[in-house]
C-alpha cells in the first residue's frame, strides 16, 4: 500500500509538463529523424537494386544503357522526395532564406523549404548561390543534389575525400579541396559537373573563398599561407601581412560579398583584413584579451564590414582606410564556435557551446551601445560542439 509520501510523489511528479514550444520543436525533429532514416534506408535499397540491375546488364541483358535499365525497372538516381518539414531550424526559415545548413564532424543538417537532411554523413557540404543545389562530399565523389526534390543532379568521382567546397558567386563553378594519401589538392569543376581541373597541388583542408566577381579564389596553402589565384591572369600570389602582424597558419579565408576585400583568421584571436592586390593586409584582434587564443570565426556583412567571434565575444568590425575599427562588441551567453550572416545581412546565426551540445541561435547584428548578444530565436542543438561546425545560410 502506498504511503502518503508516495502518493504525493505520484501527484507532483506527474504534474511536471514541458513547455509547448519545446514540444513542437521536438516533434518536428523526431518526425524528421524518422523520415530521414526511412529515406536513407529506401535509398540504400535503391542502390542495392541498381547494383543488381547493373549486374544484369553486365551479363548480357540487352538494354542499351544503364539509364534505360533504371528507367525500365523504375529506379532512378533520384532519392525519394524528402520531407517538406525544415529540420534545421525547426520553425520556418526566415523570409528570404532559401536554405540553412550546419556541417561538422562529418555530419550534415539542412533545412530548406523543400528538402531536409538530418545528421547525414558527408565529408563536406556547400549550398549554391540562391540555395538551388547542395554540393556534398560523399565517399570518393563530389555530389550535387537539387534542393527542389533532393535528386542527384550529378556526381563526380574524385581521387579522395572532398573536404571542402565553395560555390562561385555566379554559380557556374565549384572550387573544392580533395584529400588523398595525406595531401590535399585544390580543384575546380563547372557547375554542371564537367571540366574538372587542378588549381593548386598542395593546400590545407580549409574552405576556399571566391571573390565577389568570381574571378579570383583565396585559399590556404599546405604551409598555412593565404594565397589568391586570379583566373583572369592565371597567376597566384601569396598575401602579404603588415609588419608586426602575428605569423601563424590561416584557418579561414573569406572574400567580402562585394568589392575585393579579403579577411583571414589567424592565431591568438587575430584577423588579417585588406585588399590583397593593393597592399599588405592589416591585422586586428577581435577582443581586448591578450594571450593565447584560437583563431576567430568571421563572416562578412557587406563590402566593408564583417562580424567576428572569439570565445564569447562577438564584434562588428569596419574597414576604414587602411585600418580596421571595432564598431560594436557584445557578449554571448557562452563560447561561440560557429558563425554566419543571414542572406539579407541583418542577422547572424551562431553556434553556442553549452555542455556537450552546440546550440544554434539567430541573433540581431551587434550595434554600437549593445553589451549583450540579442538572441531572437533558438534553432536547435547539435552534438559534439568541438567539431568545428560550419554554418551556411543562403
Amino acid at each position: 500500500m502506498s504511503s502518503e509520501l508516495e502518493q504525493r510523489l505520484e501527484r507532483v511528479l506527474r504534474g511536471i509538463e514541458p513547455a509547448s514550444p519545446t514540444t513542437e520543436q521536438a516533434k518536428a525533429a523526431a518526425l524528421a529523424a524518422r523520415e530521414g532514416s526511412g529515406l536513407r534506408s529506401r535509398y540504400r535499397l535503391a542502390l542495392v537494386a541498381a547494383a543488381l540491375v547493373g549486374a544484369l546488364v553486365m551479363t548480357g541483358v540487352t538494354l542499351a544503357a544503364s539509364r534505360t535499365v533504371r528507367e525500365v525497372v523504375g529506379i532512378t538516381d533520384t532519392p525519394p522526395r524528402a520531407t517538406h518539414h525544415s529540420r534545421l531550424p525547426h520553425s520556418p526559415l526566415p523570409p528570404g532564406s532559401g536554405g540553412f545548413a550546419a556541417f561538422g564532424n562529418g555530419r550534415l543538417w539542412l533545412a530548406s523549404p523543400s528538402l531536409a537532411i538530418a545528421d547525414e554523413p558527408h565529408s563536406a557540404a556547400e549550398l549554391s548561390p540562391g540555395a538551388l543545389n547542395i554540393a556534398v562530399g560523399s565517399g570518393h565523389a563530389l555530389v550535387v543534389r537539387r534542393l527542389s526534390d533532393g535528386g542527384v543532379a550529378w556526381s563526380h568521382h574524385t581521387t579522395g575525400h572532398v573536404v571542402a567546397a565553395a560555390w562561385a558567386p555566379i554559380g557556374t563553378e565549384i572550387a573544392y579541396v580533395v584529400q588523398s594519401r595525406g595531401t590535399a589538392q585544390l580543384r575546380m569543376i563547372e557547375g554542371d559537373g564537367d571540366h574538372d581541373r587542378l588549381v593548386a597541388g598542395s593546400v590545407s583542408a580549409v574552405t576556399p573563398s571566391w571573390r565577389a566577381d568570381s574571378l579570383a579564389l583565396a585559399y590556404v596553402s599546405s604551409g598555412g599561407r593565404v594565397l589568391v589565384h586570379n583566373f583572369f591572369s592565371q597567376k597566384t600570389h601569396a598575401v602579404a601581412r603588415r609588419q608586426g602582424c602575428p605569423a601563424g597558419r590561416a584557418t579561414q579565408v573569406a572574400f567580402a560579398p562585394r568589392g575585393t576585400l579579403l579577411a583571414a583568421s589567424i592565431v591568438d584571436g587575430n584577423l588579417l583584413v585588406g585588399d590583397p592586390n593593393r597592399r599588405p593586409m592589416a591585422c586586428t584582434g577581435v577582443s581586448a584579451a591578450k594571450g593565447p587564443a584560437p583563431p576567430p570565426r568571421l563572416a562578412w556583412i557587406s563590402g566593408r564590414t564583417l562580424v567576428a567571434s572569439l570565445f564569447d565575444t562577438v564584434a562588428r568590425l569596419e574597414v576604414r582606410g587602411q585600418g580596421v575599427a571595432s564598431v560594436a562588441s557584445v557578449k554571448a551567453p557562452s563560447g561561440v564556435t560557429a558563425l554566419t550572416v543571414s542572406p539579407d545581412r541583418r542577422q547572424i546565426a551562431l553556434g553556442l557551446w553549452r555542455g556537450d551540445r552546440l546550440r544554434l541561435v539567430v541573433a540581431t547584428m551587434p550595434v554600437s551601445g549593445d553589451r549583450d548578444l540579442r538572441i531572437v530565436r533558438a534553432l536547435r542543438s547539435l552534438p559534439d560542439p568541438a567539431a568545428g561546425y560550419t554554418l551556411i545560410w543562403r
Partner: protein
Amino acid sequence: MAMGVPTDADLVRRARAGSREAAGDLFERHWPGAWRAARVVTGSRAMADDVAQDAFERAFAALGRFDEQRPFGAWLHRIVVNRSLDLLRRERRLVGLDSPDRIESEWRDLEAEDRALLLAVESLAPQRRVVIVLRYGLGYAPAEIADMIGVPVGTVHSRLARALEDLRGSEREEADVERT
C-alpha cells in the same frame, strides 16, 4: 462503430510503414513522460529539452530496428535515462544543475509543500532520481525498472527505499526549520 485507441505496437507498425500521423501520435503519447523523466533526472529544463528531443530522434531514427513485441515506452524511457545520466556525467563538471532560485521560480505556482518535495527530489543522487521518476513519475513496477536500467530487482527496491528515506529526511528538516 467506434474505433478503439490504437496500441503503441499499432502505431509503431504504421509509423514504420511510413505513416507520419502514426509517428506524430506516438510522439504526442510519449513526449510528456520522456520529458518528465529527463527533467527529473537532469534537474534542468534546458537539459531535459535536449535529452528528450535527442532520445526521440534516436528512437525514431532506429524505429526500423525496433522489436515490435517490446513496449515502445519502456524502450524510449531507457534511452532517456541513459542519455540523461551520460549528459549529467559530462555536464556536471561544466555547468552543474539549475540553481535553487531557478527551480523555485519554475515551480512557483505549486504549493510550498509540493515545491519543497520537488526540490528534495532534485537533491537526490542521480541513480535514486532515476528510480523515483520511473516509479512515481511514470508508473513502472520495480521489475520493469530493473529490466529497463539493467540492475537486479532487489537493487531497485533498495534504491527506492533509500530515496524515500532521503525524502522523508528532507521533509523532517524542512519542518524543523519552520519550527525554529
